[in-house]
């Protein structure tokens, strides 16, 4: 197991290097620089600004400097937010995304999981068809539609919840963004759980359990749940990544100070260090999540454990 873990961590390094290099090159290829503005600068000031951020150096040297800093875990200074490092920006923004992302995923797992299991116990009945119909709707409607609609109903009409802004630790400010982000995942999870549970409930050992006279909820929770989780776990890796990148839209709509918003303004303002930093961070998180999923597999399925 330890060897497997080390192997995966080692392969992550070249992957991250490729991500970092691509981000660096693509961003520098984009026309316009971070300090282009409609104000005209005195050449000496322009030079002072460029040398402050080493933009006056040849690109290869900037690249090596960037890699060196990256190796030390330093993403460098932000170009758009003067006097602020990218690490600080990420440290400020990541907790926001982590809170929304984890709340969204928890909501999606609870709502989607329960709906899927209920639907699987009575396939073809209204308890199956209604939630599955809603799930298709949930998958089809993008977040940038649901988020403003949630604001319209819960903030503007009912005045129950705030229409945006971020107050750390306030569930009222967390709920709408988390819900907006959770809806499509709830739908996916409901469908995955339903399909897996139907398959599991058709297995011979379930028949045995039924023959023993066990009640349905015990059969579902004790015997059918674990095999049902397998496809769900493989979905969770991409879902975690999706929740992270999907939060870019949610942040924009709700005006939240997360790293997704930072990423968008960074790209528009050619804030090289912010964009490369956030890209590498996203890359590292996705690699990390996938690794977690593989570890979960091993825990859930003894056959996978034996192979590793």
């Amino acid at each position, binding site marked *: 197991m330890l060897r497997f873990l080390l192997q995966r961590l080692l392969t992550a390094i070249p992957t991250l290097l490729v991500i970092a290099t691509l981000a660096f090159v693509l961003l520098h290829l*984009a*026309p*316009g*620089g971070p300090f*282009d*503005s*409609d*104000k*005209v*600068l*005195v*050449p*000496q*000031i322009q*030079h*002072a*600004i460029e040398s*402050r951020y080493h933009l006056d150096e040849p690109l290869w040297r900037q690249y090596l400097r960037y890699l060196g800093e990256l190796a030390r875990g330093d993403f460098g200074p932000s170009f*758009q*937010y*003067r*006097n*602020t490092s990218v690490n*600080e*920006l990420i440290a*400020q*923004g990541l907790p926001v995304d982590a809170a929304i992302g984890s709340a969204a995923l928890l909501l999606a797992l609870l709502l989607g999981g329960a709906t899927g299991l209920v639907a699987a116990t009575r396939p073809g009945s209204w308890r199956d068809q209604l939630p599955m119909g809603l799930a298709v709707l949930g998958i089809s409607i*993008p*977040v*940038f*539609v649901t*988020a*403003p*609609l949630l*604001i*319209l109903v819960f*903030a*503007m*009409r009912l*005045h129950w919840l*705030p*229409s*945006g*802004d*971020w107050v750390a630790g306030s569930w009222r400010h967390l709920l709408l963004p988390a819900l907006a982000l959770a809806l499509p995942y709830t739908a996916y999870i409901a469908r995955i759980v339903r399909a897996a549970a139907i398959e599991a409930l058709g297995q011979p050992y379930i028949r045995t359990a039924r023959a023993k006279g066990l009640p349905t909820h015990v059969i579902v929770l004790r015997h059918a749940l674990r095999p049902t989780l397998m496809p769900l776990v493989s979905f969770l890796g991409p879902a975690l990544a999706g929740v992270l990148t999907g939060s*870019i*839209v949610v942040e*924009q*709509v*709700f*005006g*939240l*100070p997360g790293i997704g*918003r*930072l990423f968008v*303004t960074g790209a*528009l*303002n*050619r804030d090289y260090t912010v964009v490369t930093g956030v890209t590498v961070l996203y890359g590292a998180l996705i690699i990390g999540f996938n690794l977690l999923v593989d570890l979960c597999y091993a825990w859930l399925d003894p056959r996978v454990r034996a192979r590793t």
Partner: protein
Amino acid sequence: MSASAASAITLLALAACTPGHDAAAPAAGGAPAAAQVLRRAVDAGGMRSIDPSISTDVPAAHVLDDLFEGLTRLGQDGEPAPGVAERWETSADGRVWTFHLRAARWSNGAAVQAGDFVYAWRRTVDPRTASDYAEALAPVRNALAIAEGRMDVTALGISAPDERTVRIELTAPTPFLLSLLTKSYAYPQYEPALRAHGDDWVRPEFMVNNGAFRLLEYVIGGRVTLVKNDDYWDAAHVRLQRVVYLPLDRAAQTERFFAGDLDFTESFSAEQTAWLRSRLGAQVVSAPYLGNFVLGVNVTRPPFAGNRALRMALTLAVDRETLVRYVRQGLYQPAWTPTPPLPGYRSPVPAWAALPEAARHALARRYYARAGYNAQHPLHVELRYPTDSDNRRTYEAVAAMWRTNLGVVAEPYNEEFRVQLNERHLKQLALFHYAWIGDYPDPLTFLQLFQTGFGYNDGGYSNPRYDALLAAAGSEADATRRLAELSQAEAILNEDVACIPLYYYATRHLIRSYVRGWTSNIQDRNLSQYMYLLRSQAH
């Protein structure tokens, strides 16, 4: 997802919404509210620094207006008023100004001294500070030479003969100096805070400031919270206890206003004007703004180089009233000349502006033919503008007018702002978006864009007569004569069709009826220190 997609959804969502119970309600009673907390929106994407020497964006300027005060401050009427300086006098030639400071204090209780201004200004022009605004202090003696590294910062034309006197020496008479002194780059700075904390001095825990409010919280890209500064010299007249700034895009600002989460928005989408007015009534506020929406013309390359007739045909063929009424919802004023209306300035509106539409179109067609174009050989031209739905509507309409009135094949083409900026500076574009917001209420801020060799002269316009008039105005001590010279210069621009002005901007705010103390002004700067809330507020 693009921001515009979200805005479209919001628009639909808002269209389905009836106003909240408090949204359109008139203010009840005149008594001030117990909780004086103002929630203001600023446009998202700004607020990149709140260091007065560094900051250049509008959202940060609002916050800085509340945190700091210069020798003068913007009065409630939008005109410069005494700030840290309680009085001042000028030399006969208008080149030396002496300011006498009042007993003002920093937020830590220390006295604001003349040396604090000298320190701050030197820091701004010092090339090591790498301030985008070093050039804004150009009217001050030696400022440019220092910024260019040719002189030491001590040579800057600002001195402190004693603790309560600031002496400023200018390179030329600068009638708009009092207005410049209200800007962030002219604030004093507290040297011990900068020495102790370096770049971190702008953090809430370290900042020492001298304005009406202190910095309580600063989330980068997020909320900024200010509280009343009891050490401010005029604190007795400041009624707000707290100001919360929220950076939001336009659609979100309107949403939050309807949700009752905002008292004062920075802007709203022009296309929503009629709908918003029908629901919010007098809470929709618009007034003239110091900015123009101009189509830049590159006179250094074909088809416009040496072809005044073609430029004339294009400017004549634009129906500005139609554009303003139907495309910009009647919010803006049509423009025939670059400088927006300013008090005491005679705008040299070209004679053709008064022609009836049919006669103007006929004249446009004659110029078009004289330029060598006709139905068989139409002008093909690209019209580049930065991505924005408001820009798109305007340029689509202009292209349609040219097509209908002249037969020109114009293709509006949007691109990212920085890409366009780059192409513009390299003079690669024939026609381009050239809007400009004035730095101070004076024609010069608009007219210098067309000066030979000026860094932002992206159309490459050059006329020695124009340059000579600008230079003459620059050394003119008499304010009336100076404005007359600038007006003559602007008439030359119009004669040469150096650009195609379309309209002048207007401010766009949603302001709750219970918010008092603000006034519309041409610079669109509303200091929170004058505002207060009446009792009818919902939050």
